[in-house]
């Protein structure tokens, strides 16, 4: 087990180096970023001085090596627009995105499993057809459009849900303000409902179809028939025999899902004014705030790598046939 973890960590380090290299190069080839940090009326001398001060005059490989060296000391540089350490800016935005991602994941996984099982158990019926049609629709609708439609219907017409905004839950929790976090939880959920559905609806639809097909495959197996012939209740057959064996592809899916949802929040965060990392990256790219973009990409890559590692370990625990 430990050999596997160490091997995976080494692989992760290579991935991180790759991520820093790609993000650094991609941003630099867009042009000279110096002009973003001087006023419209700056003289040539001021522009040149700023270029030197920010290190944009140096060759790209020198800029990258300097950056990598700082990175090794957990120094992501200072945000060029926020005038604060980039990592601080990113970590400040991360909890809001995690709240949104986890909530949408609960929707995407938590609803997909019962829907998928239900559709599989009623294969060929109108209900199965209805659920699968809805799933197809969910995979066809862009999340930002769904967001805007929900905003207009539930926010503007019915006035049931807030149109935009965010009530923090995770941040006070991390800061140790437990009472504040608990008190704000209902409000936090209230503000999460629409963006959560907008982010998670595509995954919910895809997962429901996956669970259905996985269950259908398992339900046709001999051991399920044997279980039924023993007179075990249908619920016990489904939960203990079928679902347990259909679980492996679902666990794999959960691991990939988090990364997918993290990447899918950018537009939804913009639409719902959600102060998360997606919106931060979007603005940072527009303002060419290089340190923030790089810090965000690396933090997200780290989150993704750690989650995949955890999923691999869980995978082995669920299915002893899988050797790490």
């Amino acid at each position, binding site marked *: 087990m430990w050999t596997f973890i160490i091997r995976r960590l080494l692989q992760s380090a290579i991935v991180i180096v790759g991520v820093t290299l790609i993000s650094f190069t991609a941003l630099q080839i867009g042009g000279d970023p110096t002009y973003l940090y001087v006023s419209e009326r700056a*003289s040539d001398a001021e522009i040149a001085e700023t270029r030197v001060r920010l290190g944009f005059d140096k060759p790209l490989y020198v800029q990258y090596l300097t950056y990598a060296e700082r990175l090794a000391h957990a120094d992501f540089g200072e945000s060029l627009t926020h005038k604060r350490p980039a990592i601080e800016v990113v970590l400040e935005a991360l909890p809001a995105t995690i709240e949104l991602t986890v909530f949408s994941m609960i929707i995407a996984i938590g609803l997909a499993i019962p829907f998928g099982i239900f559709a599989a158990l009623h294969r060929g019926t109108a209900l199965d057809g209805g659920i699968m049609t809805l799933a197809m629709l969910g995979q066809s609708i862009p999340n930002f459009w769904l967001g805007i439609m929900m905003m207009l219907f539930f926010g503007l017409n019915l006035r049931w849900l807030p*149109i*935009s905004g965010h009530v923090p839950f995770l941040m006070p929790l991390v800061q140790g303000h437990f009472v504040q976090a608990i008190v704000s939880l209902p409000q936090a959920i209230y503000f999460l409902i629409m963006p959560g559905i907008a982010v998670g609806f595509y995954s919910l639809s895809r997962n429901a179809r996956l669970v259905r097909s996985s269950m259908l495959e398992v339900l046709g197996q001999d051991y399920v028939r044997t279980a039924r012939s023993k007179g075990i209740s249908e619920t016990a057959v489904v939960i203990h025999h079928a679902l347990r064996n259909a679980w492996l592809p679902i666990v794999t899916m959960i691991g990939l899902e988090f990364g997918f949802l993290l990447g899918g929040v950018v537009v939804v965060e913009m639409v719902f004014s959600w102060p998360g990392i997606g919106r931060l990256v979007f603005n940072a790219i527009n303002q060419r705030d290089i340190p923030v973009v790089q810090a965000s990409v690396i933090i997200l890559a780290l989150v993704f790598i750690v989650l995949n590692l955890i999923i691999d370990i869980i995978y082995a625990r669920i299915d002893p046939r899988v050797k790490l």
Partner: protein
Amino acid sequence: MKKLVHTLLAASAAVILPLAPALAAPASDTIVIGMSTDSSTFDPPQITSRDNSNIADHIFGRLYDVTAEGKIVPQLAESYTVSDDGLAYTFKMKDGLTCEDGEALTAEDVAYSFNRAADKKNGFTGSTPGFIFSAIQFKSAEVVDKLDVKINIGTKTPIAIGLLTEVFLHCKDSYEKMSLETAASKPVASGAYKLVKWDRGSQIVLERIKPDGGTFKNIIWRIIPEASTRSAELIAGNVDVVTNVAPDQIDTVNKSGTAKVKSVQGTRRMYVGFNLRKDFASTPGGAAIQKADVRKALQYAVDVPSICTQLLNFECTRATGLVNPPNDNKSLTPYPFDPAMAEKLLDQAGYPRGKDGVRFEIKMQAPRGRYLNDANVALAVGQFLTDVGVKTTVETLDWTSLYTPLVRKHDAGPLFFLGSGGALWSAIYDMTDLAEVDSGTNYTSWNDPDFFGGWKDIQNAKTPKEQEDVVNRMLKVFYEKGPWLLMYFQPDFYGVSNRVDFQPRRDERLHVFDTNLTK
């Protein structure tokens, strides 16, 4: 089916409503403003953007203020005098001023505010050290006595007083104790409101600390980046004022019954520049626009009012120069849309249509997404020019990565679409884009001696009237031979809830000191 939908809605409501607080309009002592970007800092010398500055205007006081009409009026100072050589401004502060923490605000604090902003050790890069101080060549600020402070500058300029009004003041004792990081996030107010909460990316909450400082006790600035979301919040009554309503949403807001869009002609001057740099003359189009007659002919070719109506959803008056009304030259009339006149003048200038109907070809570059509907405006201008035989190829470019470096290096062109921020308080401020032939902002490399010679006359003018005459003379030259194809002053669209009587200003300042609830 209908029953199922109702059942689903009822079930959703049963789940959601217990979580929901009452979705109500803001309280009567609170005004909520929706804007697209968050502030990056509240340390005065670091502030750069207008949105950031608009909030800071409510937190920090300044020596003088600029009214909505462009008049410079006292704020924390009560008067000022200028030395004979024009290099020292002495301000007399009002007595009895205090900061948020109770510290008295005197001449010492004013001097500290200026000198702290200029101190290179602090590494400030905001508008005060980056633009204002370089424009006036700020030297130092010194205390004369308790209420008098002298600001020393390195160049005599009639716009110094206007620029000095931009500098935010703060108290010395509190800021001396603060780290730069604390100063950026926990300002100590010298103005009418104090910062009570800053949920980064979400909202900024201000609370009134001076009873006569403003109508509303609380001002909430909500950060709503997406224009359609801002409009929805406005229509729902959750926000009282929103900035930058997208032109395509104006009708929706106006028909909502809960809010209206108020448009105002801004001070940003939009123009198509003729890049007259010699190396551009190597192309036929670049060579043609070197002639003032050709430039004048092209003024008649573009239907600017139609561009405003069709593409900006705004009725505009075409600009006659680079100065904002009411400081412009009143004797000049906007060039009319007269393609026949354009063709006649082009013929006379020696550019008749060829067999293919083309007089000459030219390239126009334009930004994408920087100004209101910029790419489409540029394409429309290109088509108007093509219609009179000047075959124009329009190239639209990303603003930050491609267009800005081109313009800054004076490499955009031969034609380029651009906007330049202006002001209402001085004609000369608007003209400083062309303060010298070598100015960084003379993106067209225009060098007409009749215009640039006027700057010396402005310096030597004895009276405001004399100065105005020189300005008008220069503007006439600009109108006749200038390097700009004159367009419009970019409109700004504000969504205003029926709940408040907010009046937008032309200079992009968003002040709610005098805004009231509607009766």
